[in-house]
Every structure is written in structure tokens, then in C-alpha cells.
């Protein structure tokens, strides 16, 4: 996957999000503190927000180009989006949630077969359950399956493990690796946990108050110590002193 943000600016309330970069990888992480602009970046990619300036491309497909007032609608981007809590529809049961995405996308890729996904994500026993009867881990598995059933060209994951305990975190991380390596679905993974990014991503973009402060492989970004402190790098355009 090749992800390009070309001079993108977006007013994200408290600050101006300004990103301009080109990254290639199977799983790209977005790292930063709360309010750094991670979720805004993901929402720009998903088409849920419109950038004031700049262009966004994924694998040479233009998703938005402010100079031409072009904005591909979210339903036409083929990007699976899994927010923090999974955002399952509470008025539908698990099966109906899974069918929601599939029925809305008539050109579903046969590579994303129901049986394979049900086995990978272990959702078969959950199908008749109500959403309120699911644990946090089960919700995330259902949300992942729902997004994958639409045959997305990539998955946007916004802190999907933040509310899970250690056991569920390990289990979902393993499933995400399977999705990345066996289903060949690239991931954009938002987190403020370095451990998750090290385990999953081949590149990490570090954001701080709307600006990119570092880009690189997780091993370059995070110090090899238990605290996982990351080195802040100057933006490429900043003059060296």
C-alpha cells in the first residue's frame, strides 16, 4: 500500500492538522498523544472529513483533491473503518450487523469468504447474540468481520485495542496479523501504545498537535527499552540549528 498526503490541511478544532508525506507498507501506524490528530487523519482517509487543502491518494487512487473540489464519498472508497469501540449497530444483532456491510457492497470480493472470516475471527458462536451481550473483544472481532465482508482495499483501525484486557489484546493482534499477511489487507493502525505498533506495523508516523514529527520503522521510532520512549525528530522542512 502506498499512502500519500500531499500538502493536506484540515482545521481540527483546537489545532490545524498539516500533513504531507508518502509512506509505503503493509501496516502503517499513526502514533501520538490524545489530541495529536490521529483520529482526524483517519477520518480524512475514510472521507468522513474534508481537507481544506491538499490531496490524498491510496495506491495512486485519488480519494480527495481540494484544489479540484474532488471528494470521493465514504461509501465509494472501499475502506474498512473500525473505530475504538467497534461502533456496532445496537438495534441489530451480530448477524444483521455483519450483513449490513455485505449487502451494501454488491461487488464483494470472493477472497473475503464468510466461512474463512468466521473461522479466523471466531464469530460463528456469536451470530444470534445481541450487541449488548458481547464482551469488548467479541465486539471488536465482529466489527473487524463486518468491515472485511465489504472487501476493503485497506482497513482503518482507530485504537481498536484500547478498551481490551491483555488476553483479548494479544488475541486481536494475532488476528490483525492474519488479516495483514493471509488476507493481504493493508492496515492503517492508530494507537498511543508503542507495543502494539511494534508488533504490527512496518512504518510509523508520529503526530504531535497536527504535525508529523517523525516517520520511520518502529525500531527507528521507539527506543529499544521497556518504556518504549520514542525519539522526536524534526520535520524534514524545519531548518537545522
Amino acid at each position, binding site marked *: 500500500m502506498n499512502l500519500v498526503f500531499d500538502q493536506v490541511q484540515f482545521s481540527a478544532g483546537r489545532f490545524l492538522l498539516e500533513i504531507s508525506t508518502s509512506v509505503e507498507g503493509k501496516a502503517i501506524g499513526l502514533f501520538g498523544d490524545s489530541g495529536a490528530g490521529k483520529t482526524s487523519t483517519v*477520518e480524512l482517509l*475514510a*472521507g*468522513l472529513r474534508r481537507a481544506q487543502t491538499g490531496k490524498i491518494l491510496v495506491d495512486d487512487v485519488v480519494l480527495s483533491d481540494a484544489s479540484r473540489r474532488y471528494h470521493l*464519498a*465514504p*461509501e465509494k*472508497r472501499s*475502506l*474498512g*473503518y473500525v*473505530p475504538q469501540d467497534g*461502533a456496532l*449497530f*445496537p*438495534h441489530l444483532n451480530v448477524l444483521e450487523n455483519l450483513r*449490513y*456491510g455485505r449487502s*451494501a*457492497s454488491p461487488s464483494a470480493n470472493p477472497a473475503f469468504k464468510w466461512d474463512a472470516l468466521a473461522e479466523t475471527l471466531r464469530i460463528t458462536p456469536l451470530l444470534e447474540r445481541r450487541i449488548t451481550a458481547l464482551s469488548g473483544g467479541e465486539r471488536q472481532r465482529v466489527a473487524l468481520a*463486518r*468491515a472485511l465482508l*465489504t472487501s476493503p482495499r485497506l482497513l*482503518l483501525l482507530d485504537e481498536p485495542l484500547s478498551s481490551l484486557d491483555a488476553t483479548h489484546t494479544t488475541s486481536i493482534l494475532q488476528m490483525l496479523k492474519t488479516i495483514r499477511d493471509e488476507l493481504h489487507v493493508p492496515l492503517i493502525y492508530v494507537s498511543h501504545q508503542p507495543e502494539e505498533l511494534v508488533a504490527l506495523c512496518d512504518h510509523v508516523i508520529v503526530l504531535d498537535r497536527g504535525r508529523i514529527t517523525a516517520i520511520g520503522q518502529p525500531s527507528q521510532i521507539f527506543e529499544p527499552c521497556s518504556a518504549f520512549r520514542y525519539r522526536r525528530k524534526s520535520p524534514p522542512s524545519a531548518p537545522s540549528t
Partner: protein
Amino acid sequence: MHENLQITAFSLLVAAAGTALILPGGIALGWLLARKTWPGKALVETLVALPLVIPPVATGLILLKLFGRNGIFGAWLSQTFGVDIVFTWKAVVLAAAVMALPLLVRTVRVAFEEVPTRLEHVARTLGSGPWRVFFTVSLPLAARGICAGGVLAFARALGEFGATVMIAGFIPGETVTLSLGIYHHVQLGQDDRALVLLVISAALAFAAVAVSEYLLRRRDRAS
């Protein structure tokens, strides 16, 4: 007894027709106010809320001026369709609808505001266009609030008096609702007959508010 039944049935029909008349527009307006920013939004909000704050007879007078034979809408309806509104049952429905609209729109607006936007966002990324998102996510999740608003609007329409008496007058068998009937009987010193209509009104209003409260409580539990 027959007269009381006729008045009760007429009042229920008028309240139901008035509520049905404003329901589609009220839902659309409630959604627009909850989800969109547009020029003139504050003005529309104020206009919709007006019947709540100005005296009902004043609202009735405005309707009389607008829908009378020489009014903007009244003249157009009369010349185009040959339909007269004032001092007919249609005026009773119109008054009930206008007076109930603010309650409906306010409740519907809150119901849509309580639907988490992230669910609508996720529905878009799952391949649904804005209309499908509205009918499959927003509307079902706001349904209980909308029903509660409809019941409240129905109850308000059922008890309407001031605007009705201005635009529809008191025409036995044609425009007399429970409220007008009570007023009329009291004016004539027929307190016992007024009391019967009062009990019917109170029972209907109690049932409507109880249903509305039940729906709102269920919505709170669900959310």
C-alpha cells in the same frame, strides 16, 4: 351521550390527522436541525418554537389572517382548489397541527442528536449512501424518541383550544372538540356536561403522556 361520543371521536380524529400531517415534515426538520448547519437555521428554529411562547389565540389570529379568504394561502387554496379552510373541520386540524409542531420537532431533534454520529459514519464506510444511512441507522435508533414526540404532539393537539376557536369557531357537529365543548357547556352553566367531557379529556391526555413517558424511558434504557 351521543353528542359526547361524537365530540370525543372528532377530537381524536382531528388530533390524529394533525399529528399525521406534521409527522413527515417534523421528522425531516428535526433531523436537519440536529445534523446540519444551514443559512436561516436560527430563524426556522425560532419560527417553529413560536407557537410555544405566544398566546394560542394570537397563533389562531395569524392562521386566520393567512388562511382566511383574503389571506395569502387561503385565497390561493380557494382559487386553485376551491378549498375553504376557516370555520371548517380543516381549520381544526390546521390549528392542532401548528400548535403540536414545536413539541414534535423538539423531541425529534433530541432523538436524532442522541444517535451517535460514529454509527452513521461507520455505515457510510460500509457502503451506504446518506439515504440508506438515514433509513437503516438514524431513523431506527431515533424511533422511540420520534414515537414519544408523536404521542406528545397528539396530546397537545387533543387539548388545543385558543387557536382552534379563532380559526374554526364553534360550529356544533362541525368544529367542536373536547376543549371547545367544555368551554361551551361552562358558558351555558351546564357544569355536569362539562365535567363528563373533562373526565374524557383527562383520561385521554393521561394515556397519551403515559405512553410517551414509557417510550422515552425505554429509549433511555436502550441507550
